[in-house]
């Protein structure tokens, strides 16, 4: 079943390249994958918990390297996010100039890579699948991008290549830090033996993982690739990358760093808190200064990573649960925002604030949708972003109760200003694009018709998860609780969570 999730997009990509009807095949594959994901979600026994649907193919027995697929609550929500965003992204893909099959095949490869990474329980393939998405991104931005697409494509590719090789060093280091008999790439086994990691190399490995993943997540000060790449990327590519692929690094931190290296995570929490405040405050202020909608959204996605890092840095159940939920919520909201921005760009040919304005008059549906997505992004109640940000802030603040005005509490107080910052830029963006006096040129624009549905899909799921966050929390909480209960490694205040 999980193997299908990876194979369906790859086979569809191959079929498209060999001449199958492009849009039908691609969209069909995306919907099929969504159905399979829902099937996996319903088939998951949350009462039993743990990893299920295990598929194991040995690759190198000497190394204990295997192709290992399996899901638990945390990976299921990431798979669900991937499936939903893939459907929406392929749906809103505009008319393609030039090689249409290659365009859709690239998108399908990105989707397959993300699916593979989230479904892998083996460090090697977890890493390898993520890299699969790198080259399609390079091609998509380079060939079909807009604006300064060439430099943006180079920047994202080289940043991510170096970041992922740093990550690779960290993963190899992790492998060798176990005693010889326990060396394996199997995440499930590694988690059982977490206490055996060589204490001398823990900190170095954690730093390699933190910065390797951090570059992939656009952790300050390694964030500069993200805004330009998202601004230049074709709309579906931006949706896939900002919505799904960037969550890979956060997922990796929760999946690998948290259960295996909680000690160093605690030790370097101060460093991470400083950097994530850079994301929230520095990138947040930079977002306010943007003069184009696409760049503003790109920067805002960098900024929101700061909250997820804050949830991770809190290292307790509330905070990490919030981080997981926020990964899901932010993936949907940023995908919706990029989809809407793409619609605006397609109609007007520009996203510069000063040239736009008053677009809500000819396009009320699009304006309304942007308003909703913007509210979600700011973190207004009713959307999953609200529930998750609340958890993140509570988790991070609570962490410091042992000693008042600890680093976590100070960081939380500063991070809270991020909500104000995001309200400022989102509302300014909304005003500049959809409110105010309308430029005569735009009076005759047509509103979205069928393409409102993918946007509605994204927002509906976001609201569903916002009103019933327990649906998601119930899945991820046992996973994180188990990760955090690694014996003898971490002494932090315990807290039990009652779902709604």
């Amino acid at each position, binding site marked *: 079943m999980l193997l299908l999730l990876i194979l369906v997009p790859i086979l569809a990509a191959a079929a498209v390249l060999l001449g199958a009807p492009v849009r039908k095949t691609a969209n069909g594959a995306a919907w099929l994958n969504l159905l399979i994901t829902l099937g996996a979600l319903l088939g998951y026994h949350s009462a039993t918990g743990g990893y299920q649907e295990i598929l194991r193919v040995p*690759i*190198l027995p*000497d190394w204990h390297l295997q*192709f290992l697929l399996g899901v638990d609550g945390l990976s299921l929500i990431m798979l669900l996010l991937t499936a939903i965003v893939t459907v929406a992204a392929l749906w809103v893909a505009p008319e393609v100039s030039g*090689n249409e099959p*290659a365009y859709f095949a690239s998108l399908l490869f990105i989707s397959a890579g993300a699916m593979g990474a989230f479904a892998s329980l083996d460090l*090697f393939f977890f*890493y*390898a*699948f993520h*890299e*699969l998405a*790198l*080259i399609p991104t*390079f*091609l998509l931005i*380079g*060939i079909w991008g807009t604006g300064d697409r*060439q430099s943006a494509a*180079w920047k994202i*590719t*080289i940043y991510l*290549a*170096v970041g992922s*090789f*740093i990550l*690779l*060093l960290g993963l*190899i*280091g992790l*492998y*060798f830090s176990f005693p010889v008999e326990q060396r394996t790439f199997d995440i499930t086994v590694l988690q059982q033996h977490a206490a055996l990691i060589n204490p001398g190399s823990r900190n*170095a490995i954690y730093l390699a993982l933190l910065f390797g993943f951090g570059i992939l997540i656009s952790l300050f000060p390694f964030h500069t690739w993200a805004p330009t790449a998202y601004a230049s990327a074709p709309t579906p590519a931006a949706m896939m990358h900002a919505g799904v692929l960037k969550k890979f690094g956060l997922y990796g931190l929760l999946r690998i760093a948290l259960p295996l290296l909680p000690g160093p995570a605690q030790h370097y929490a101060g460093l991470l808190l400083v950097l994530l405040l850079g994301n929230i405050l520095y990138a947040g202020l930079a977002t306010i200064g943007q003069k184009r909608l696409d760049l503003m959204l790109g920067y805002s996605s960098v900024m929101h990573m700061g909250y997820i890092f804050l949830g991770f840095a809190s290292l307790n159940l509330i905070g990490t649960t919030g981080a997981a939920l926020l990964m899901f919520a932010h993936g949907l909201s940023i995908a919706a925002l990029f989809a809407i921005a793409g619609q605006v760009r397609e109609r007007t040919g520009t996203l510069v604030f000063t040239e736009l304005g008053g677009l809500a008059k000819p396009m009320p549906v699009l304006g309304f949708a942007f308003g909703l997505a913007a509210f979600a992004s700011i973190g207004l109640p009713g959307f999953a972003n609200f529930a998750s940000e609340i958890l993140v802030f509570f988790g991070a603040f609570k962490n410091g109760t042992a000693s008042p005005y600890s680093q976590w509490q100070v960081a939380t107080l500063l991070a809270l200003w991020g909500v104000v910052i995001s309200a400022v830029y989102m509302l300014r963006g909304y005003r500049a694009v959809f409110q105010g006096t309308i430029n005569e040129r735009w009076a005759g624009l047509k509103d979205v018709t069928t393409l409102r549905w993918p946007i509605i899909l994204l927002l509906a799921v976001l609201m569903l998860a916002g009103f019933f966050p327990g649906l998601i929390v119930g899945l991820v909480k046992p996973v994180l609780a188990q990760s955090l209960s690694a014996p003898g490694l971490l002494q932090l205040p315990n807290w039990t969570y009652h779902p709604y």
Partner: protein
Amino acid sequence: MIQPVFLEVAVLITGLFLLIYESFAQDREKGFVAGMGIAALTIILIASFFATPTINIGGPPTGAMQFYTADALALFFKRFALLTTIIVLVISLEYRDVVRKFIYGAHSDAGIGEFYTIPIFTCAGLMWMASAVDFTMIFVSLELVTISFYILVAYMRRNSNSLEAGVKYLVLGALSTGFFVYGVTWIFGITGTTNLAQCATAMRFLPSCQGPLLFGFMLVLMGLGFKVAAVPFQFWVPDVYQGAPTPITAFLSVGSKAAGFVVLIRVVETFLSVPVLHDKVIAILSAVAAFTLLYGNLAALPQNNLKRLLAYSSIAHAGYLLIAVASLSGPGASSAIGFYLAGYLMMTLLSFIVIVVVANATGGDDIANFNGLGKRSPGLAFALLIAMLSLAGVPLTAGFFGKFFVFAAAIDQGHYVLSAIGIVTVGAGFYYYLKVVRAMYWLDPAAETAIPVSPLASFTITCLVTAIFIFGVFPRPIMDALSDVPIVAPVLAVSR
């Protein structure tokens, strides 16, 4: 069962037979010489799978067998040399129009037959190098390889670039051979033997001779560094690679490098088995590896000619391989080198075959000649894309597994600085390999017509692309062939 010794003999006989046969078949198309060579080498390659690794069981070897080993590593590299030569002959067939243009004879194919037969002698030399465990044998087989390359590099005698490459290769090759022999005399002078295993034993009892031994080692390293294109012995590489006939460039960058590395493995393991020399040898190798990585990758960045780019990339890959050589005191390093070279064979030969096909149609091998290849010939562009991604080290290709094993060996041995340098240079690699991808897919072609590909070439390209994918996911066949790699000199438990 076949004795491994007979493999080289068969190759040599094939070469001699074809050389004589060709000279009596003057007025005919000479392509059949290459065809027969390919067929014969393929049969020998298949036969090599029936040969079992034999390590002198039952007492010490006598006579010429003291020079020769047929362990798993040697056998692996013999197959490697055979496969490389087969593909080089395929590329030579594609390339024959260019060679014809620069050799005027009585008729169009006069003087071209040797172009197909000399590589077979090179192949025999490469196979002997894989088995050599004595400095004498190493020297003789090395010279067989080098001298046949002197001829091949300068083969297009009316082409000034080819001649320039030939002269450079000859002068620097002779110089490096001189260094090598001088180094061997120092080692021989101290240990009284040229046999590697006996050298290792002797050196352990001579802790006071560190300085002279290290001097000898460095001279030998110079000679081998020239073969594998390691800094600071890489000056010849870009010009020779660019000037030489493209099939010969491919042969140089794969065959010559692999044979150089197998000898390097044996020599370095001999020296690493001496406790007093261990750390110093590793320090020397690490320094060479670091400079090779930096030079190769950084100098590749501004290149505009694809052959020249691949020349620098060949230096860069020597750097990654040297990381593994510097980690040879660990368990996985020699199989890492073997796997890396196997992946390197596939992706480099794949690039060169596509270069030849495209250069035949577009008239040049600058990166600009590949503009818009994605629109013109999607199949060729895809093949080159895979080759470039594998060279850059994208996962699920053979090239990535190679880098993975190398970095794993390095981290196991605690070479953190080398690994960090490796990571930074991988980033540079992504830039220059993707420059080719950019030309193929982002830019517009000069002409729209599809590029013709001969059936043999397209078959080879398909095989190589498939192999890159298969070994990118299932590296096990190669790793199994390399496992139980016995070490020439028994490595003592090194006390550090």
